[in-house]
């Protein structure tokens, strides 16, 4: 008995101190949290500017109100995004000091450019958000434009760093493995970067659009169908609906890139234990410990066909077993990757259908779908698109395992020797959950107060003392309906 307890205690202690799983968990948790705020930081400013443009150009009072309120919510999400992002830059060193020590000179380069973009973004976000009451309308509008550009530039730079981990290039090592020369342009413009960055930027617009639209869809389901709510919905949903088909196209190319360049990741995605042709696309299903695939719905030949349509079903897909067991992701990781892949593609397809519904309705009826089911689906689209985003990142990151730098450095060789990581993990989780919940509560509270206030309050009125039209003009009203 005592022995059992002792062994148990020992394993518990060992589990508690082995930094690898804790460091992974902490990195993953903080990244997954930060990434939810990223789409808002990247695309919300763009949507706000659409509303702002309309407001100033057509003296649209509802649009003005929308733009101003969005910018105030943005102040909150931007701040939370900025501070959670900062933690990441601490964590690269705190959790992966050996990785940063060896590769910082190469991997770090994109972040230098990212810093440039974030700096620009932080500056102009502040001017835009705080400038409502005193700046002139058009100059004020223009201070928002750098925010949009910097948001795109920033995310491209960060993703370039991640892409470098997938396709490391642009450096020379000496015999001991030390990096002795770096070509910064090759580091940034590595092979994985163009498609990955494009996929992420489009994702940011897609997720941002659906997230915001879902809030207004919920409001409309609750009977708030005034023009203000409709406008909020239309701007956001239209952005998302344009982004979705593009995202499918980019994703398709990205999948082919992975097929050609990261065969083991691709094998995990498609659940291919041994090299073969005519590989089925297995929906759900799992890899068992004995290396066979069970369950799920196989669609014959589809995975082969998608990998290279020119050779069709005879396309050969490399299996997991083409590399030594040590270089493969574990069975559990394979299953996670595959499930995440199904989630991304499955939900992505649903979102695509929803966008198509919306698009077709506009083309044929010149208005958005009237069905309540459409609104219900739109209300769910925000959460679904976030799941897509998270799932896509899980495919990328877990699919890369056991490598931190693909084919060069393993995660276990990169981790900190610090055994206290489990404590920082717990602290981070508690703090982040508190911040996450509070963010939602604060945003909801703001929305409730905005609603209560109705129009602009004295304190708020933008572009004062310049005046606002009393009512939106009827023709505009029609157009938005």
């Amino acid at each position, binding site marked *: 008995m005592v022995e059992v307890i002792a062994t148990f205690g020992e394993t518990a202690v060992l589990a508690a101190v082995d930094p690898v799983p804790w460091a992974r968990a902490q990195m993953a948790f903080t990244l997954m949290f930060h990434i939810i705020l990223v789409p808002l930081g990247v695309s919300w400013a763009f949507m706000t500017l659409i509303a702002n443009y309309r407001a*100033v150009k057509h*003296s649209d009072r509802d649009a003005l109100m929308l733009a101003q309120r969005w910018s*105030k919510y943005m102040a909150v999400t931007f*701040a939370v995004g*900025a*501070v959670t992002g*900062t*933690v990441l*830059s*601490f964590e690269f*060193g705190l959790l992966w*000091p*050996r990785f*940063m*020590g060896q*590769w*910082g*000179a190469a991997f*770090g*380069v994109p972040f*230098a450019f990212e*810093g440039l973009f974030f*700096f620009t973004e*932080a*500056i102009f976000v*502040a001017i835009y*958000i*705080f400038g409502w*009451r*005193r700046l002139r*309308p058009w*100059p004020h509008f223009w201070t928002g434009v750098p925010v949009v550009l910097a948001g795109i530039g920033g995310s491209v730079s960060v993703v370039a760093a991640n892409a470098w981990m997938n396709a490391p290039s642009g450096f020379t090592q000496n015999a001991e493995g030390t*990096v*002795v*020369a*770096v070509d910064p342009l090759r580091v940034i413009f590595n092979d994985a970067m163009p498609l990955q960055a494009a996929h992420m930027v489009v994702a940011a617009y897609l997720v941002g659009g659906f997230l915001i639209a879902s809030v207004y869809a919920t409001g409309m389901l609750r009977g708030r169908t005034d023009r203000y709510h409709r406008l909020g919905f239309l701007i956001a949903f239209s952005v998302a609906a344009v982004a979705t088909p593009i995202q499918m196209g980019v994703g398709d190319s990205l999948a082919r890139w992975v097929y050609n360049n990261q065969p083991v990741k691709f094998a995990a995605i498609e659940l291919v234990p041994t090299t073969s042709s005519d590989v089925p696309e297995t929906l759900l299903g799992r890899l068992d410990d004995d290396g066979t695939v069970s369950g799920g719905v196989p669609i014959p030949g589809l995975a082969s066909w998608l990998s290279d349509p020119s050779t069709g079903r005879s396309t050969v897909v490399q299996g997991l077993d083409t590399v030594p067991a040590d270089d493969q992701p574990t069975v559990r990781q394979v299953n996670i990757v595959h499930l995440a892949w199904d989630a991304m593609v499955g939900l992505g397809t649903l979102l695509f259908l929803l966008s198509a519904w919306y698009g077709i309705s506009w083309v044929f009826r010149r208005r958005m779908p009237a069905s309540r089911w459409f609104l219900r689906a739109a209300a769910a689209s925000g959460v679904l698109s976030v799941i897509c985003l998270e799932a896509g990142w899980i495919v990328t990151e877990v699919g890369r395992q056991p490598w931190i730098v693909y084919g060069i450095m393993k995660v276990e060789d990169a981790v*900190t*020797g610090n055994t*206290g990581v489990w404590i920082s993990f717990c*602290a981070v989780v508690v*703090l982040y959950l508190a*911040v996450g919940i*509070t963010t939602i509560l*604060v945003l909801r*509270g*703001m929305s409730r*107060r*905005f*609603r*209560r206030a*109705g*129009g602009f*309050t004295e*304190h708020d*009125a933008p572009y004062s003392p310049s*005046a*606002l*039209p*009393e*009512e939106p003009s009827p023709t505009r009203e029609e157009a938005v309906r």
Partner: protein
Amino acid sequence: MIAAVAVVLLAAVLAYALFGGADFGAGFWDLTAGGPQRGARPRAVIEHSIGPVWEANHVWLIFIFVILWTSFPQAYASITLTLFVPLMIAALGIVLRGASFAFRKAVVTTRNRRLFGAGFAASSVLVPYCMGAIVGGIATGRVPTGGRAGDPVDSWINPTSTVGGVLAVAAAAYLSAVYLVWDARGLDQTDMAEYFRRRAVASAVVVAVIAAAGAFVLRADADYLFDGLISRALPVVILSGACGVGALLLLVRGAARGARALALVAVAAAVVSWGVAQSPYILPTNLTFAAAAAPPGTLTAVLAVVVLAAVIVLPGFVLLYVLDRRGLLPEEGVDDVADPDVDRAPDNDPHLHAATTRDSIEEPGR
């Protein structure tokens, strides 16, 4: 090129100390401003002054990290390996601080404001303390290199770190009080200007006392740094001291114009003297800048970013400060409407009646 990047690193540290430091200091005065009634007015000045700029100021920290890990990756790895605990605390403190500050503006009830205000203020003291302690650990040579971790406790709980932490908190408070004098004057609040002037004088004295005590601690605890301060860095140390005294005299006598500039130079020179004193080491006396430096390609990229920053970011940063100082970026909180039942239709909103034609909104664009 290595020297250029080292100078850039020092400049980033300097900018973070002067801009970010003042924001932290503002949090200190927020913390000590007293109850909700008594502290309301100073807090309003504080919020008004750092509201629009804190996020931009905070990016200097990101710059420091980025320069460290690209240009001196071994140093970054060693620092994070040894000083895990204070860095982690600082990171969490930064989350707490930024989030609380943003939330506080967005909530209205006094209870919530106090809650977030407390989070903001407490972390504003915690973070600079940790930063100062980290500097202390580095400057005294407690961070070894070569993939070995130094002592996880002694590296940041030691005499120099304690002095460094306390000094960082005090210097931040001092800088911030000096800025706030002018901010309050900008708002035409003479009594608040006086309020912060008194605090500036008090904190100047505290900083001077800590610095003097610190000299003894350094002599006992940090040979290399102390030698550097009384040799290579002596002119800068003297500059710092002279400006500090000058600023104090001006502050005592009613805070004339030059006081702010002198205070800035005093703190800046103190930071620079640290950098000069520990050169050529990035981690005294274990790792020199030259030994830690990344390959030339990386350093070129970093310097290119610095040039781009000077061209792109600096004008924006200056614009932000100019707009802020001219009061063109008024505090944007969220108003509460006293009576929840008044769901006013737009047309009985008196405010909108004051509105005239729609032309006026388009006019400036032409």
